[in-house]
C-alpha cells in the first residue's frame, strides 16, 4: 500500500473518520447542492438584508437568502433561537441524516464561531439604545452567550454528550473539528458532531469595512486585483466517529482525520505571520504522519485581502518549496463565513476527495507575482485526491491546520 505509512504518528490513539456532512451556505443547502456549487464555481453576492445598511458606501455580502425546503424549519426554530443556532441545527440535522444515524444520543457537540449570536447581540444593543436596558427580554439575555449555540444543537438532536463552543475566531471550525477528533482519539466518545457557524452581522461588517478589508467587488483570492473579503454566513457540520464505531455500524466512511496542528503567532492581533503559519503546517504534518509531498490539495484560508494571500503563500512556500500542491480558496464562492469558514473548507475537501475534483478559485483574472500559486482558477479540475490540507487562520494569530485523507483509502486498507 503506497500510503500505508500515512497516519501512523499516533499508533496508540483511535483513528477518527468522517461519516456525515451537513452544510447550509449561500450557494447551496445540503451536500448535493453544495457539491454542485463547488463543481460549477457558483458565486452569489447580494445586497445585505440581515441588518440596517443605511450609511455604508456599499453593503453586499454572501448572505443566505434562499433556505429552500429548510425555510419552514428555520422559521420554527427562530421563534426560540438566534440565527447562528438555527443555521447550526439545520446543518447538524443534515449531517446526522447523511451519516445514516438512528441513535446518537451519546454524541457530543463542538462548534466553532467567531461572533456567536451576533444578530441577537445587535438586537439587544439597539433595544437598549432606543428603549433602555429594562426593555430587553430575559430570553435575549439568556441566548446571548456563545455556548447557547452548541446547547441548542444538542437539545434539538436529543444529545447527552458534551456541548462546547470554541471561539477562536475565523479558525474556529478547524479548532472544533480538531478538538472533537481528540475527544474520540482519547476514547472519551465514539461519535461527535462538530463544525462551525456564523451569521452575517453589522458589527463584523463595520469592523472589516473600517479596516478597508471589504471588497467593493467580488472576492478574488490570489488575484492581482483582489480588494478584500465579503462577509458571509452559514453552518458546516461533520459527524465524526471512531473508525471501529463507523465500521461496526457499516457507515459510509467519507474521510479520515489524520491530525491537526495549532500555533499562535503571539505577534499581532490582525496581521498574519508567515513563520508561525509555516510552523503550524509542519506541526500538522508531523502529527498526521505525512510529508509535504503527500499533500494533493490545500484548501487555503485565502481571504482575498492584500495581506493574507501573500503571507499564506509565503508560508506554503516555506514548507513545500517550489512543489506546492494546488491551493484553492472557496471563499471566492461563499465569502468569508468566519467561524464556519474552515469547517466549510473541510467539507469542500471531503467533497473534492469523494468526487475526484478540485473546487476552483473563482473570479480570478490576473496572476499576482507576490502570491504565485496554482489556485485552480475559475474552473473545477478533475483530480484524484488522497491527502488534503485545510487551513484556518484568525485574528489573534490563532492558526489551525487540519489534514484529511480520502475515505476510499481507508476502505482499501480495511480490505
Amino acid at each position, binding site marked *: 500500500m503506497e500510503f500505508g505509512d500515512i497516519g501512523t504518528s499516533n499508533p496508540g490513539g483511535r483513528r477518527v473518520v468522517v461519516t456525515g456532512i451537513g452544510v447550509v451556505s449561500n450557494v447551496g443547502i445540503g451536500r448535493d447542492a453544495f457539491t454542485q456549487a463547488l463543481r460549477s464555481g457558483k458565486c452569489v453576492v447580494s445586497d445585505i438584508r440581515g441588518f440596517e445598511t443605511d450609511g455604508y458606501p456599499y453593503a453586499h455580502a454572501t448572505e443566505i437568502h434562499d433556505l429552500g425546503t429548510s425555510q419552514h424549519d428555520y422559521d420554527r426554530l427562530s421563534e426560540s433561537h438566534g440565527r447562528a443556532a438555527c443555521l447550526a441545527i439545520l446543518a447538524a440535522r443534515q449531517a446526522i441524516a447523511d451519516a445514516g444515524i438512528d441513535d446518537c444520543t451519546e454524541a457530543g457537540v463542538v462548534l466553532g464561531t467567531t461572533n456567536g449570536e451576533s444578530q441577537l*447581540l445587535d438586537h439587544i444593543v439597539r433595544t437598549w439604545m432606543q428603549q*433602555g436596558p429594562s426593555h430587553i427580554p430575559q430570553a435575549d439575555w439568556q441566548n446571548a452567550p456563545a455556548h447557547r449555540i452548541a*446547547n441548542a444543537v444538542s437539545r434539538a438532536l436529543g444529545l447527552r*454528550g458534551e456541548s462546547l463552543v470554541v471561539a477562536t475566531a475565523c479558525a474556529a471550525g478547524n479548532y472544533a473539528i480538531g478538538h472533537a477528533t481528540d*475527544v474520540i482519539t482519547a476514547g472519551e466518545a465514539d461519535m461527535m458532531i462538530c463544525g462551525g457557524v456564523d451569521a452575517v452581522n*453589522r458589527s463584523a461588517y463595520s*469592523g472589516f469595512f473600517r479596516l478597508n478589508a471589504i471588497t467593493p467587488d467580488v472576492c478574488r483570492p490570489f488575484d492581482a486585483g483582489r480588494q478584500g473579503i465579503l462577509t458571509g454566513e452559514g453552518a458546516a457540520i461533520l459527524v465524526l466517529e471512531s473508525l471501529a464505531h463507523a465500521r461496526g455500524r457499516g457507515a459510509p466512511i467519507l474521510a479520515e482525520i489524520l491530525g491537526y496542528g495549532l*500555533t499562535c503567532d*503571539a505577534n499581532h*492581533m490582525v496581521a498574519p505571520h508567515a513563520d508561525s503559519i509555516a510552523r503550524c503546517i509542519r506541526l500538522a504534518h508531523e502529527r498526521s504522519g505525512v510529508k509535504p509531498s503527500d499533500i494533493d490539495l490545500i484548501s487555503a484560508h485565502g481571504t482575498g485581502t492584500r495581506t493574507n494571500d501573500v503571507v499564506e503563500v509565503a508560508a506554503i512556500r516555506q514548507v513545500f518549496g517550489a512543489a506546492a500542491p494546488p491551493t484553492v480558496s472557496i471563499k471566492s464562492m461563499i465569502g468569508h463565513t468566519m467561524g464556519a469558514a474552515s469547517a466549510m473548507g473541510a467539507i469542500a475537501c471531503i467533497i473534492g476527495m469523494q468526487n475526484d475534483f478540485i473546487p476552483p478559485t473563482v473570479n480570478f483574472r490576473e496572476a499576482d507575482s507576490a502570491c504565485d500559486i496554482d489556485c485552480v482558477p475559475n474552473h473545477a479540475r478533475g483530480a484524484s485526491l488522497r491527502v488534503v490540507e485545510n487551513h484556518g487562520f484568525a485574528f489573534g494569530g490563532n492558526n489551525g491546520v487540519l489534514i484529511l485523507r480520502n475515505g476510499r483509502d481507508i476502505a482499501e486498507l480495511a480490505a
Partner: protein
Amino acid sequence: MTPIAILDVGVASAAGIGLAPFAACLRGAALPAPARMEASLSAFGHLPTRAAHWLSGFDAGAHLGRKGVANLDRTTQLAILLCRDLLGTLPAHLSEGRESTGVVLGTSGGSFKSIADFIRSTYAGPAPHMVSPMQFPNTVMNSAAAQCAIWNGLRGLNSTVCAGDLSGFAALQYAMRMLRLDHARLLLAGAVQEYCEFGAFAHESLTPDPASLQAEGGAVFALSAAPDDGAIGTLLAVRLGLLPAGSGVSGMADAIRRLLRDAGVVPGEISWWSTASKGEAQAGAEAEAVAYLFGAIVTVPCIAGRFGDAGGASVALQVAACLILAPDGIGLVTAADAGGQFGCALLRRRPRTVH
C-alpha cells in the same frame, strides 16, 4: 488517564490582584465593600442599580506599563496580568519553551463591553463604518487569550472556549485533553470575567434577587502533564455537558459516577466537595447527588456568597478557592446552570503551607 499537575494558580478577585489577598479573605479577612459602577465605565449612560464586587481601583497601566494598555478591555487586561504573574512564579525549567506553552481561556462570550460598545458605535457615529479600528479586534471572543500570547510571547496553542457560567470547566477540560495528547507542554488555563454594563444588566434581569451581586475577576492555572514536586494540586478528571431534560439529581449523580470512572477513583476516596453554582435549586440538587454518592463529606463553601457572582469565571475561582481551603486528598467541584449544563471536576489538593 494521566493526571494533570496544577503547578500554580493566579487569581484576581474582589480581594485584589494576587493569590495572597484572595487567600486572606477566604480565611476571614475583610473584603472591600461592593461598589457602584463608575460613570467612566458606561458608554450607554445607564448605570446598574446594584453595587458589585468589582476591582474598582484596578489600574492596568500600573501593573502592565502604559504602552498599549489603554486600548485593551478589562477582560484582556486582567487575563494578561494573570498569565504574566503566573509565568513569573514558575521555575525557569517549566516556563521556558514558549513554542510549546499555550493559553486556554474560558469565557461566556468575550468582553461584552467591547462587543456592545462597538455595536453601539455603528449606530451612534456619523456612519456605521466610522468605528474604531483599534477596538474592532477586542470584539472577537479570542482577543483576551490572543493578547495573553502576544504580551507573554506564548506561541503554543491558544484557544478560547465557551460554556457560560461553566466556562472554567470547559477551559480545564480542554487543556487537560490537549496536554494528554501532547499538543502542548505547559498550558495556562482558566477564566476571566470583567464587570461591565452589559453583564450587569443581564445579571439584574436573570438574577432578580437584589442581594445577588456581580463579581469581577478570574483564575488561571499553570497545567502540565508531567508530574512535578512543586505542584499545588492535581487535576484528575473533568466532565461537562447537558443534563438529560428533567434528570436533575439522578443526572448529576450519573455524571459524577462517570467522572470517578474516568479517573479510576472509588467513592470512598472522595473527602470533600464544593459547588460553584449560583442557583439555589442547582446547588441543592448537587448537594443531594453528592450526599447520595458519598454520604457526609467536608463541604468547601461556595465563594459566590461573599465574593459575588463571577459568571464565566465562577468555576475557575471556586477551584482556586478549593486549592486553598480544601482538606488534603481528593475532592469534587461541581456546578450547574439554569440552562441544564452540569460540570464536575476531580482534583487532589497537595498539602502545602505556603499560602
